[in-house]
Protein backbone atom coordinates (compact mmCIF):
# COMPACT_ATOMS: atom_id res chain seq x y z
CA UNK A 1 0.00 0.00 0.00
CA UNK A 2 1.47 3.36 -0.93
CA UNK A 3 0.75 6.35 1.15
CA UNK A 4 -0.60 9.38 -0.58
CA UNK A 5 2.23 11.62 0.55
CA UNK A 6 4.86 9.50 -1.12
CA UNK A 7 3.43 10.16 -4.52
CA UNK A 8 5.08 12.99 -6.38
CA UNK A 9 2.79 15.97 -6.44
CA UNK A 10 2.56 17.74 -9.73
CA UNK A 11 2.49 21.51 -9.78
CA UNK A 12 1.82 23.94 -12.53
CA UNK A 13 3.62 27.21 -12.83
CA UNK A 14 1.62 30.14 -11.67
CA UNK A 15 1.99 33.68 -12.97
CA UNK A 16 1.59 36.29 -10.27
CA UNK A 17 1.28 39.99 -10.78
CA UNK A 18 3.01 41.83 -7.97
CA UNK A 19 1.87 45.43 -8.15
CA UNK A 20 1.66 48.07 -9.58
CA UNK A 21 -0.33 48.89 -6.47
CA UNK A 22 0.89 46.72 -3.68
CA UNK A 23 1.62 48.03 -0.20
CA UNK A 24 5.20 46.81 -0.22
CA UNK A 25 6.19 48.02 -3.66
CA UNK A 26 7.16 51.53 -2.47
CA UNK A 27 5.60 53.33 -5.37
CA UNK A 28 4.15 52.10 -8.60
CA UNK A 29 6.22 49.19 -9.79
CA UNK A 30 5.03 45.96 -11.22
CA UNK A 31 6.75 42.60 -11.15
CA UNK A 32 5.48 39.64 -13.11
CA UNK A 33 6.57 36.55 -11.24
CA UNK A 34 6.53 32.93 -12.27
CA UNK A 35 5.99 30.76 -9.25
CA UNK A 36 6.55 27.10 -8.68
CA UNK A 37 4.79 26.50 -5.43
CA UNK A 38 6.05 29.42 -3.43
CA UNK A 39 9.43 29.64 -5.12
CA UNK A 40 10.00 32.36 -7.68
CA UNK A 41 11.50 30.89 -10.83
CA UNK A 42 11.46 34.04 -12.93
CA UNK A 43 10.68 37.66 -12.27
CA UNK A 44 10.22 40.39 -14.86
CA UNK A 45 10.08 43.89 -13.43
CA UNK A 46 7.98 46.33 -15.41
CA UNK A 47 8.66 49.98 -14.78
CA UNK A 48 7.61 53.25 -16.27
CA UNK A 49 4.33 53.83 -14.46
CA UNK A 50 5.59 57.12 -13.10
CA UNK A 51 7.45 58.25 -16.21
CA UNK A 52 6.82 61.96 -16.49
CA UNK A 53 9.44 63.15 -18.93
CA UNK A 54 11.56 65.11 -16.46
CA UNK A 55 14.52 65.01 -18.82
CA UNK A 56 12.50 66.44 -21.68
CA UNK A 57 11.12 69.08 -19.34
CA UNK A 58 14.66 70.07 -18.41
CA UNK A 59 15.27 71.24 -21.96
CA UNK A 60 12.54 73.83 -21.54
CA UNK A 61 13.25 75.16 -18.05
CA UNK A 62 16.17 77.35 -17.15
CA UNK A 63 18.85 76.31 -14.69
CA UNK A 64 17.15 77.63 -11.55
CA UNK A 65 13.67 76.47 -12.55
CA UNK A 66 14.78 72.89 -13.01
CA UNK A 67 15.75 72.66 -9.34
CA UNK A 68 12.05 72.37 -8.50
CA UNK A 69 11.87 69.30 -10.75
CA UNK A 70 14.78 67.62 -9.00
CA UNK A 71 12.77 67.60 -5.75
CA UNK A 72 10.19 65.40 -7.37
CA UNK A 73 12.64 62.71 -8.40
CA UNK A 74 13.78 61.36 -5.07
CA UNK A 75 11.05 62.47 -2.73
CA UNK A 76 12.69 60.88 0.29
CA UNK A 77 15.87 62.95 0.11
CA UNK A 78 15.05 65.93 -2.12
CA UNK A 79 17.88 68.06 -0.74
CA UNK A 80 20.49 65.64 -2.07
CA UNK A 81 18.98 66.02 -5.52
CA UNK A 82 18.96 69.82 -5.24
CA UNK A 83 22.61 69.82 -4.27
CA UNK A 84 23.62 67.36 -6.98
CA UNK A 85 21.96 69.44 -9.67
CA UNK A 86 23.38 72.71 -8.39
CA UNK A 87 26.87 71.18 -8.33
CA UNK A 88 26.56 70.05 -11.94
CA UNK A 89 25.32 73.46 -13.07
CA UNK A 90 28.10 75.19 -11.16
CA UNK A 91 30.72 72.97 -12.70
CA UNK A 92 29.30 73.72 -16.14
CA UNK A 93 29.45 77.48 -15.50
CA UNK A 94 32.73 77.22 -13.59
CA UNK A 95 31.33 79.03 -10.55
CA UNK A 96 32.79 78.80 -7.07
CA UNK A 97 30.46 78.95 -4.12
CA UNK A 98 31.34 80.12 -0.63
CA UNK A 99 32.57 77.77 2.07
CA UNK A 100 29.47 78.44 4.16
CA UNK A 101 27.23 77.35 1.29
CA UNK A 102 29.16 74.11 0.98
CA UNK A 103 28.95 73.38 4.70
CA UNK A 104 25.21 74.03 4.81
CA UNK A 105 24.79 71.77 1.77
CA UNK A 106 26.73 69.03 3.53
CA UNK A 107 24.60 69.44 6.65
CA UNK A 108 21.38 69.23 4.65
CA UNK A 109 22.56 66.24 2.61
CA UNK A 110 23.52 64.32 5.72
CA UNK A 111 20.20 65.10 7.42
CA UNK A 112 18.49 63.79 4.27
CA UNK A 113 20.62 60.68 4.39
CA UNK A 114 19.57 60.05 7.99
CA UNK A 115 15.91 60.55 7.13
CA UNK A 116 16.16 58.27 4.11
CA UNK A 117 18.05 55.45 5.83
CA UNK A 118 15.93 55.48 8.97
CA UNK A 119 12.75 55.42 6.93
CA UNK A 120 14.13 52.73 4.64
CA UNK A 121 15.00 50.45 7.53
CA UNK A 122 11.62 51.15 9.06
CA UNK A 123 9.80 50.30 5.84
CA UNK A 124 11.83 47.14 5.42
CA UNK A 125 10.90 46.16 8.96
CA UNK A 126 7.19 46.87 8.52
CA UNK A 127 7.15 44.86 5.29
CA UNK A 128 8.53 41.94 7.27
CA UNK A 129 6.07 42.45 10.10
CA UNK A 130 8.08 44.46 12.63
CA UNK A 131 5.86 47.42 13.31
CA UNK A 132 7.79 49.01 16.18
CA UNK A 133 10.99 49.77 14.29
CA UNK A 134 8.91 51.41 11.59
CA UNK A 135 7.18 53.72 14.06
CA UNK A 136 10.47 54.64 15.71
CA UNK A 137 12.01 55.40 12.34
CA UNK A 138 9.06 57.38 11.11
CA UNK A 139 9.06 59.55 14.21
CA UNK A 140 12.63 60.79 13.79
CA UNK A 141 12.09 61.20 10.09
CA UNK A 142 9.24 63.57 10.87
CA UNK A 143 11.49 65.51 13.25
CA UNK A 144 14.11 65.86 10.52
CA UNK A 145 11.44 67.05 8.13
CA UNK A 146 10.52 69.67 10.72
CA UNK A 147 14.12 70.87 10.50
CA UNK A 148 13.79 71.10 6.72
CA UNK A 149 10.63 73.09 7.21
CA UNK A 150 12.46 75.53 9.48
CA UNK A 151 15.30 75.99 6.98
CA UNK A 152 13.58 75.76 3.61
CA UNK A 153 9.90 76.43 4.30
CA UNK A 154 8.58 73.05 3.21
CA UNK A 155 8.91 69.43 4.20
CA UNK A 156 9.28 67.69 0.85
CA UNK A 157 9.62 69.97 -2.16
CA UNK A 158 12.48 71.89 -0.68
CA UNK A 159 14.14 73.53 -3.74
CA UNK A 160 16.72 74.85 -1.32
CA UNK A 161 19.69 75.36 -3.60
CA UNK A 162 20.19 77.86 -6.37
CA UNK A 163 22.86 77.79 -9.01
CA UNK A 164 25.70 79.48 -7.14
CA UNK A 165 24.30 79.32 -3.64
CA UNK A 166 21.30 78.68 -1.48
CA UNK A 167 17.80 80.06 -1.47
CA UNK A 168 18.45 81.49 2.00
CA UNK A 169 20.74 81.11 4.95
CA UNK A 170 19.85 78.81 7.84
CA UNK A 171 17.91 80.68 10.54
CA UNK A 172 19.31 81.58 13.93
CA UNK A 173 19.09 78.85 16.51
CA UNK A 174 18.96 76.17 13.80
CA UNK A 175 22.04 74.45 15.19
CA UNK A 176 20.36 73.86 18.55
CA UNK A 177 17.32 72.36 16.87
CA UNK A 178 19.56 70.11 14.77
CA UNK A 179 21.55 68.91 17.78
CA UNK A 180 18.35 68.08 19.62
CA UNK A 181 17.09 65.98 16.72
CA UNK A 182 20.48 64.32 16.29
CA UNK A 183 20.46 63.15 19.91
CA UNK A 184 17.05 61.68 19.29
CA UNK A 185 18.26 59.95 16.12
CA UNK A 186 21.18 58.45 18.01
CA UNK A 187 18.78 57.02 20.56
CA UNK A 188 16.40 55.69 17.93
CA UNK A 189 19.21 54.02 15.98
CA UNK A 190 20.26 52.22 19.15
CA UNK A 191 16.64 51.28 19.82
CA UNK A 192 16.13 49.89 16.32
CA UNK A 193 19.33 47.90 16.51
CA UNK A 194 18.36 46.49 19.90
CA UNK A 195 15.01 45.48 18.47
CA UNK A 196 16.29 43.91 15.28
CA UNK A 197 19.96 42.86 15.33
CA UNK A 198 19.58 39.79 17.50
CA UNK A 199 15.96 39.13 16.71
CA UNK A 200 15.73 35.60 15.36
CA UNK A 201 12.79 36.29 13.06
CA UNK A 202 14.55 39.32 11.61
CA UNK A 203 17.74 37.35 11.07
CA UNK A 204 15.89 34.47 9.42
CA UNK A 205 14.06 36.82 7.13
CA UNK A 206 17.10 38.86 6.07
CA UNK A 207 20.27 36.76 6.34
CA UNK A 208 21.35 35.03 3.11
CA UNK A 209 18.49 36.66 1.23
CA UNK A 210 19.26 38.47 -2.00
CA UNK A 211 23.03 38.07 -1.96
CA UNK A 212 24.94 40.32 -4.38
CA UNK A 213 28.51 39.25 -5.00
CA UNK A 214 31.23 41.82 -5.51
CA UNK A 215 31.60 40.96 -9.20
CA UNK A 216 27.86 41.20 -9.81
CA UNK A 217 27.66 44.50 -7.98
CA UNK A 218 30.27 46.00 -10.31
CA UNK A 219 28.81 44.43 -13.43
CA UNK A 220 25.32 45.68 -12.59
CA UNK A 221 26.58 49.16 -11.74
CA UNK A 222 25.40 48.97 -8.13
CA UNK A 223 26.50 51.92 -6.03
CA UNK A 224 25.93 53.40 -2.61
CA UNK A 225 25.09 51.40 0.52
CA UNK A 226 24.15 48.38 -1.59
CA UNK A 227 27.62 48.21 -3.12
CA UNK A 228 29.28 48.81 0.22
CA UNK A 229 27.27 45.95 1.72
CA UNK A 230 28.88 43.73 -0.94
CA UNK A 231 32.37 44.72 0.10
CA UNK A 232 33.13 47.45 -2.43
CA UNK A 233 35.12 50.13 -0.65
CA UNK A 234 33.84 53.06 -2.64
CA UNK A 235 32.22 56.18 -1.27
CA UNK A 236 32.18 59.22 -3.52
CA UNK A 237 32.28 61.48 -0.46
CA UNK A 238 35.72 60.04 0.36
CA UNK A 239 37.13 58.96 -2.98
CA UNK A 240 36.05 61.90 -5.13
CA UNK A 241 35.10 64.55 -2.57
CA UNK A 242 32.73 67.32 -3.61
CA UNK A 243 31.29 70.26 -1.69
CA UNK A 244 34.07 70.27 0.97
CA UNK A 245 33.52 66.68 2.09
CA UNK A 246 37.29 66.40 2.41
CA UNK A 247 37.10 68.63 5.53
CA UNK A 248 35.05 66.10 7.47
CA UNK A 249 36.25 63.14 9.43
CA UNK A 250 34.07 60.05 9.12
CA UNK A 251 34.30 56.35 8.37
CA UNK A 252 32.86 54.41 5.46
CA UNK A 253 30.59 51.55 6.51
CA UNK A 254 31.33 48.31 4.72
CA UNK A 255 29.93 44.79 5.05
CA UNK A 256 31.01 41.66 3.23
CA UNK A 257 28.08 39.30 2.73
CA UNK A 258 25.93 41.47 0.45
CA UNK A 259 22.61 40.18 1.76
CA UNK A 260 19.60 42.11 3.03
CA UNK A 261 20.89 41.96 6.61
CA UNK A 262 24.22 43.51 5.64
CA UNK A 263 22.54 46.26 3.69
CA UNK A 264 20.52 47.03 6.80
CA UNK A 265 23.69 47.10 8.93
CA UNK A 266 25.48 49.39 6.49
CA UNK A 267 22.55 51.81 6.48
CA UNK A 268 22.43 51.93 10.27
CA UNK A 269 26.17 52.59 10.48
CA UNK A 270 25.89 55.30 7.84
CA UNK A 271 23.28 57.04 9.97
CA UNK A 272 25.79 57.12 12.84
CA UNK A 273 28.49 58.51 10.56
CA UNK A 274 26.07 61.11 9.21
CA UNK A 275 25.35 62.28 12.75
CA UNK A 276 29.11 62.77 13.15
CA UNK A 277 29.33 64.78 9.92
CA UNK A 278 26.34 66.95 10.89
CA UNK A 279 27.91 67.79 14.25
CA UNK A 280 31.26 68.62 12.65
CA UNK A 281 29.55 70.79 10.08
CA UNK A 282 27.74 72.73 12.81
CA UNK A 283 30.95 73.07 14.84
CA UNK A 284 33.04 74.34 11.98
CA UNK A 285 30.35 76.35 10.21
CA UNK A 286 32.16 79.26 8.49
CA UNK A 287 30.64 82.70 8.40
CA UNK A 288 29.90 84.50 5.18
CA UNK A 289 27.43 84.80 2.39
CA UNK A 290 25.42 81.98 0.88
CA UNK A 291 25.25 83.44 -2.62
CA UNK A 292 27.88 84.41 -5.13
CA UNK A 293 28.78 87.90 -6.30
CA UNK A 294 25.59 89.39 -7.82
CA UNK A 295 27.60 91.22 -10.49
CA UNK A 296 28.28 87.92 -12.22
CA UNK A 297 24.61 87.83 -13.19
CA UNK A 298 23.92 84.30 -12.05
CA UNK A 299 22.17 84.45 -8.71
CA UNK A 300 18.75 85.78 -7.87
CA UNK A 301 18.52 88.71 -5.46
CA UNK A 302 17.08 88.11 -1.98
CA UNK A 303 13.28 87.97 -1.96
CA UNK A 304 13.12 90.89 0.47
CA UNK A 305 14.72 93.17 -2.07
CA UNK A 306 12.56 91.86 -4.92
CA UNK A 307 9.32 92.56 -3.10
CA UNK A 308 10.30 95.85 -1.49
CA UNK A 309 12.50 97.76 -3.92
CA UNK A 310 12.27 98.63 -7.60
CA UNK A 311 15.96 97.90 -8.18
CA UNK A 312 15.59 94.45 -6.72
CA UNK A 313 12.62 93.73 -8.96
CA UNK A 314 14.44 94.91 -12.07
CA UNK A 315 17.44 92.84 -11.14
CA UNK A 316 15.21 89.80 -10.55
CA UNK A 317 13.74 90.20 -14.04
CA UNK A 318 17.21 90.62 -15.53
CA UNK A 319 18.02 87.13 -14.29
CA UNK A 320 14.74 85.37 -15.04
CA UNK A 321 13.44 86.92 -18.28
CA UNK A 322 13.59 84.69 -21.38
CA UNK A 323 15.89 86.90 -23.44
CA UNK A 324 18.23 87.71 -20.52
CA UNK A 325 19.47 85.66 -17.67
CA UNK A 326 22.46 83.51 -17.17
CA UNK A 327 24.38 82.40 -20.22
CA UNK A 328 26.48 79.35 -19.55
CA UNK A 329 29.40 78.44 -21.80
CA UNK A 330 29.04 75.70 -24.42
CA UNK A 331 30.09 72.48 -22.77
CA UNK A 332 29.03 69.66 -20.52
CA UNK A 333 29.40 68.58 -16.93
CA UNK A 334 28.88 65.30 -15.12
CA UNK A 335 29.15 65.53 -11.36
CA UNK A 336 28.80 62.32 -9.32
CA UNK A 337 27.48 62.69 -5.79
CA UNK A 338 26.82 60.19 -3.04
CA UNK A 339 23.07 60.25 -2.54
CA UNK A 340 21.46 57.95 0.07
CA UNK A 341 20.80 55.40 -2.68
CA UNK A 342 24.10 55.54 -4.49
CA UNK A 343 25.77 57.50 -7.21
CA UNK A 344 23.43 60.30 -8.20
CA UNK A 345 24.74 62.46 -11.00
CA UNK A 346 23.38 65.10 -13.28
CA UNK A 347 24.84 65.31 -16.74
CA UNK A 348 24.13 68.74 -18.19
CA UNK A 349 24.93 69.66 -21.76
CA UNK A 350 24.72 73.28 -22.71
CA UNK A 351 24.68 74.94 -26.12
CA UNK A 352 25.08 78.42 -24.63
CA UNK A 353 21.39 79.23 -24.21
CA UNK A 354 19.61 80.00 -20.97
CA UNK A 355 18.05 76.54 -20.89
CA UNK A 356 20.21 73.41 -20.90
CA UNK A 357 20.43 71.47 -24.15
CA UNK A 358 19.99 68.18 -22.32
CA UNK A 359 19.73 67.19 -18.68
CA UNK A 360 20.37 63.59 -17.85
CA UNK A 361 19.92 62.17 -14.38
CA UNK A 362 21.97 59.15 -13.43
CA UNK A 363 19.30 57.53 -11.28
CA UNK A 364 20.70 55.19 -8.62
CA UNK A 365 17.26 53.63 -8.08
CA UNK A 366 16.92 52.49 -11.69
CA UNK A 367 20.38 51.02 -11.90
CA UNK A 368 20.25 49.35 -8.48
CA UNK A 369 16.82 47.91 -9.27
CA UNK A 370 17.98 46.26 -12.50
CA UNK A 371 19.58 43.43 -10.51
CA UNK A 372 16.28 42.56 -8.81
CA UNK A 373 15.19 39.80 -11.18
CA UNK A 374 18.50 38.06 -10.61
CA UNK A 375 18.27 38.39 -6.83
CA UNK A 376 14.76 37.02 -6.41
CA UNK A 377 15.28 33.92 -8.54
CA UNK A 378 15.11 30.81 -6.36
CA UNK A 379 13.84 32.70 -3.34
CA UNK A 380 10.40 32.46 -1.80
CA UNK A 381 7.68 34.90 -2.77
CA UNK A 382 7.68 36.33 0.74
CA UNK A 383 11.32 37.37 0.26
CA UNK A 384 10.33 39.78 -2.49
CA UNK A 385 9.30 42.59 -0.09
CA UNK A 386 12.57 42.14 1.82
CA UNK A 387 14.67 42.46 -1.32
CA UNK A 388 12.70 45.39 -2.73
CA UNK A 389 12.89 47.11 0.63
CA UNK A 390 16.64 46.65 0.86
CA UNK A 391 17.16 48.04 -2.66
CA UNK A 392 15.22 51.15 -1.60
CA UNK A 393 13.55 51.76 -4.94
CA UNK A 394 12.03 55.21 -5.22
CA UNK A 395 9.58 55.27 -8.07
CA UNK A 396 9.91 58.97 -8.82
CA UNK A 397 13.59 58.55 -9.50
CA UNK A 398 13.19 55.15 -11.12
CA UNK A 399 10.94 56.42 -13.91
CA UNK A 400 11.61 60.15 -13.95
Amino acid at each position, binding site marked *: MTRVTEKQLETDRMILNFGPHHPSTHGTLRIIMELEGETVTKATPEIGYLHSGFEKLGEDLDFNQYITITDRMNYLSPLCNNVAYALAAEKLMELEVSKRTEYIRVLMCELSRIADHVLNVGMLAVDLGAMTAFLYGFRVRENIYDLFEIATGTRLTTSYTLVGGLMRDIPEGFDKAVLKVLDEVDEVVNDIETLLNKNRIWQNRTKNIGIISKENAISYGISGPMARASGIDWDIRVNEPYSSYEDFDFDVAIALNGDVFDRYLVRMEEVRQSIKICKQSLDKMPTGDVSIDPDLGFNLPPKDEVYNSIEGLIYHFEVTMPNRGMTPPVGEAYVPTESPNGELAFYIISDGNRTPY*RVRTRPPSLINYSIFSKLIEGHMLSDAPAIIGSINVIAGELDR
Partner: protein
Amino acid sequence: MSLEKTLSQIKGSFSDYVLGLTEYAGEQIIHIKGQGVIDVLKTFKDAGFNFLADLTAIDNLTLGGFERFAVVYHLLSHGSAERVTIKAYVPEDNPVLPSIESLWKTADWQEREVFDLFGIEFEGHPNLTRIMNPDDYEGHPLRKDYPRLGRKERYDFPVIDRGIQKQKRTE
Protein backbone atom coordinates in the same frame (compact mmCIF):
# COMPACT_ATOMS: atom_id res chain seq x y z
CA MET B 1 47.01 52.14 -15.73
CA SER B 2 46.47 55.84 -15.87
CA LEU B 3 43.93 57.56 -18.03
CA GLU B 4 46.42 59.31 -20.30
CA LYS B 5 48.25 56.10 -21.04
CA THR B 6 44.98 54.33 -21.94
CA LEU B 7 43.88 57.21 -24.13
CA SER B 8 47.11 57.20 -26.08
CA GLN B 9 46.94 53.42 -26.38
CA ILE B 10 43.43 53.66 -27.83
CA LYS B 11 44.47 56.45 -30.15
CA GLY B 12 47.29 54.28 -31.40
CA SER B 13 45.53 50.97 -31.86
CA PHE B 14 42.05 52.13 -32.92
CA SER B 15 42.91 55.12 -35.08
CA ASP B 16 40.10 54.23 -37.54
CA TYR B 17 37.48 54.62 -34.82
CA VAL B 18 38.75 57.64 -32.91
CA LEU B 19 37.32 60.94 -34.14
CA GLY B 20 38.93 63.22 -31.59
CA LEU B 21 39.69 64.09 -27.99
CA THR B 22 38.31 67.09 -26.13
CA GLU B 23 38.44 68.39 -22.60
CA TYR B 24 35.95 70.49 -20.67
CA ALA B 25 36.25 71.53 -17.01
CA GLY B 26 38.92 68.93 -16.40
CA GLU B 27 36.96 66.00 -17.88
CA GLN B 28 38.40 64.02 -20.77
CA ILE B 29 36.00 63.16 -23.57
CA ILE B 30 36.91 60.74 -26.33
CA HIS B 31 34.81 60.77 -29.51
CA ILE B 32 34.58 57.51 -31.45
CA LYS B 33 32.57 55.93 -34.25
CA GLY B 34 29.62 53.80 -33.19
CA GLN B 35 30.86 50.49 -34.56
CA GLY B 36 34.08 50.63 -32.52
CA VAL B 37 32.36 50.82 -29.18
CA ILE B 38 33.01 47.26 -27.99
CA ASP B 39 36.72 47.33 -28.83
CA VAL B 40 37.30 50.71 -27.21
CA LEU B 41 35.26 49.98 -24.08
CA LYS B 42 36.93 46.60 -23.67
CA THR B 43 40.33 48.29 -23.76
CA PHE B 44 39.18 50.71 -21.08
CA LYS B 45 37.77 47.87 -18.99
CA ASP B 46 41.05 45.96 -19.17
CA ALA B 47 42.92 49.12 -18.21
CA GLY B 48 41.08 49.32 -14.89
CA PHE B 49 37.97 51.32 -15.78
CA ASN B 50 35.84 48.62 -14.23
CA PHE B 51 32.60 50.49 -13.55
CA LEU B 52 30.09 51.73 -16.13
CA ALA B 53 28.62 54.63 -14.20
CA ASP B 54 26.15 55.86 -16.77
CA LEU B 55 24.97 55.23 -20.30
CA THR B 56 22.85 57.78 -22.10
CA ALA B 57 22.48 59.52 -25.45
CA ILE B 58 22.37 62.99 -26.92
CA ASP B 59 20.50 64.17 -29.98
CA ASN B 60 22.89 66.55 -31.73
CA LEU B 61 20.24 68.00 -34.06
CA THR B 62 20.99 71.64 -33.30
CA LEU B 63 24.07 71.24 -31.13
CA GLY B 64 26.28 70.00 -33.94
CA GLY B 65 28.61 67.05 -33.75
CA PHE B 66 30.12 64.33 -35.83
CA GLU B 67 26.73 62.64 -36.37
CA ARG B 68 23.11 63.13 -35.34
CA PHE B 69 23.19 60.90 -32.24
CA ALA B 70 25.87 60.33 -29.67
CA VAL B 71 25.66 57.50 -27.16
CA VAL B 72 27.56 58.55 -24.05
CA TYR B 73 29.35 56.17 -21.69
CA HIS B 74 30.71 57.39 -18.36
CA LEU B 75 33.37 55.06 -17.04
CA LEU B 76 34.89 55.05 -13.58
CA SER B 77 38.00 53.36 -12.31
CA HIS B 78 37.64 52.19 -8.71
CA GLY B 79 41.39 51.75 -8.54
CA SER B 80 42.60 55.18 -9.57
CA ALA B 81 39.38 57.21 -8.99
CA GLU B 82 39.46 58.55 -12.55
CA ARG B 83 36.53 59.09 -14.84
CA VAL B 84 36.33 59.24 -18.61
CA THR B 85 33.51 60.05 -21.00
CA ILE B 86 33.18 58.18 -24.28
CA LYS B 87 30.90 59.46 -27.00
CA ALA B 88 30.01 57.00 -29.76
CA TYR B 89 28.41 58.63 -32.78
CA VAL B 90 25.71 57.00 -34.90
CA PRO B 91 24.13 58.48 -38.03
CA GLU B 92 20.48 59.49 -38.32
CA ASP B 93 19.53 57.15 -41.18
CA ASN B 94 20.92 54.03 -39.50
CA PRO B 95 21.06 54.52 -35.72
CA VAL B 96 22.50 51.12 -34.81
CA LEU B 97 25.49 50.26 -32.68
CA PRO B 98 26.68 47.12 -30.89
CA SER B 99 25.36 46.41 -27.43
CA ILE B 100 27.85 46.32 -24.57
CA GLU B 101 25.60 44.14 -22.41
CA SER B 102 28.28 41.44 -22.62
CA LEU B 103 30.78 43.72 -20.87
CA TRP B 104 28.53 45.20 -18.18
CA LYS B 105 25.12 43.84 -17.24
CA THR B 106 23.99 47.31 -16.19
CA ALA B 107 23.91 48.25 -19.88
CA ASP B 108 20.83 46.04 -20.29
CA TRP B 109 18.28 48.47 -18.83
CA GLN B 110 20.15 51.60 -19.77
CA GLU B 111 20.34 50.60 -23.43
CA ARG B 112 16.64 49.83 -23.32
CA GLU B 113 16.05 53.32 -22.01
CA VAL B 114 18.11 54.87 -24.80
CA PHE B 115 16.24 52.73 -27.33
CA ASP B 116 12.92 53.84 -25.89
CA LEU B 117 13.62 57.55 -25.66
CA PHE B 118 15.98 58.05 -28.64
CA GLY B 119 15.21 55.19 -31.01
CA ILE B 120 18.82 54.04 -31.17
CA GLU B 121 19.08 50.28 -31.67
CA PHE B 122 21.63 48.06 -30.01
CA GLU B 123 22.77 44.98 -31.91
CA GLY B 124 23.07 41.87 -29.78
CA HIS B 125 20.92 43.14 -26.92
CA PRO B 126 19.00 40.25 -25.32
CA ASN B 127 15.69 42.05 -24.87
CA LEU B 128 15.48 45.37 -26.69
CA THR B 129 11.98 46.58 -25.76
CA ARG B 130 10.64 49.84 -24.48
CA ILE B 131 11.15 50.39 -20.77
CA MET B 132 9.60 53.74 -19.83
CA ASN B 133 6.82 54.06 -22.39
CA PRO B 134 4.18 51.46 -23.25
CA ASP B 135 5.09 48.94 -25.93
CA ASP B 136 2.65 50.38 -28.48
CA TYR B 137 3.92 53.94 -28.06
CA GLU B 138 4.96 55.75 -31.21
CA GLY B 139 7.89 58.10 -31.43
CA HIS B 140 10.95 58.70 -29.28
CA PRO B 141 10.34 61.53 -26.81
CA LEU B 142 13.87 62.74 -26.15
CA ARG B 143 14.62 63.36 -29.81
CA LYS B 144 14.86 67.06 -30.50
CA ASP B 145 12.23 66.91 -33.27
CA TYR B 146 9.65 65.37 -30.94
CA PRO B 147 7.15 68.04 -29.87
CA ARG B 148 7.45 69.12 -26.28
CA LEU B 149 3.73 69.74 -25.90
CA GLY B 150 2.76 66.21 -26.90
CA ARG B 151 0.20 67.66 -29.30
CA LYS B 152 0.15 64.76 -31.66
CA GLU B 153 -0.75 62.13 -29.08
CA ARG B 154 -3.36 64.22 -27.32
CA TYR B 155 -5.16 65.16 -30.50
CA ASP B 156 -5.13 61.58 -31.73
CA PHE B 157 -7.13 60.23 -28.80
CA PRO B 158 -10.46 58.79 -29.92
CA VAL B 159 -13.24 61.15 -28.91
CA ILE B 160 -16.54 59.67 -27.75
CA ASP B 161 -19.38 61.73 -29.14
CA ARG B 162 -22.12 62.55 -26.69
CA GLY B 163 -24.16 65.01 -28.75
CA ILE B 164 -23.57 68.13 -26.68
CA GLN B 165 -19.82 67.97 -27.07
CA LYS B 166 -20.18 67.61 -30.80
CA GLN B 167 -22.43 70.64 -30.95
CA LYS B 168 -19.97 72.70 -28.94
CA ARG B 169 -17.06 71.71 -31.10
CA THR B 170 -18.74 72.67 -34.33
CA GLU B 171 -19.73 76.09 -33.02
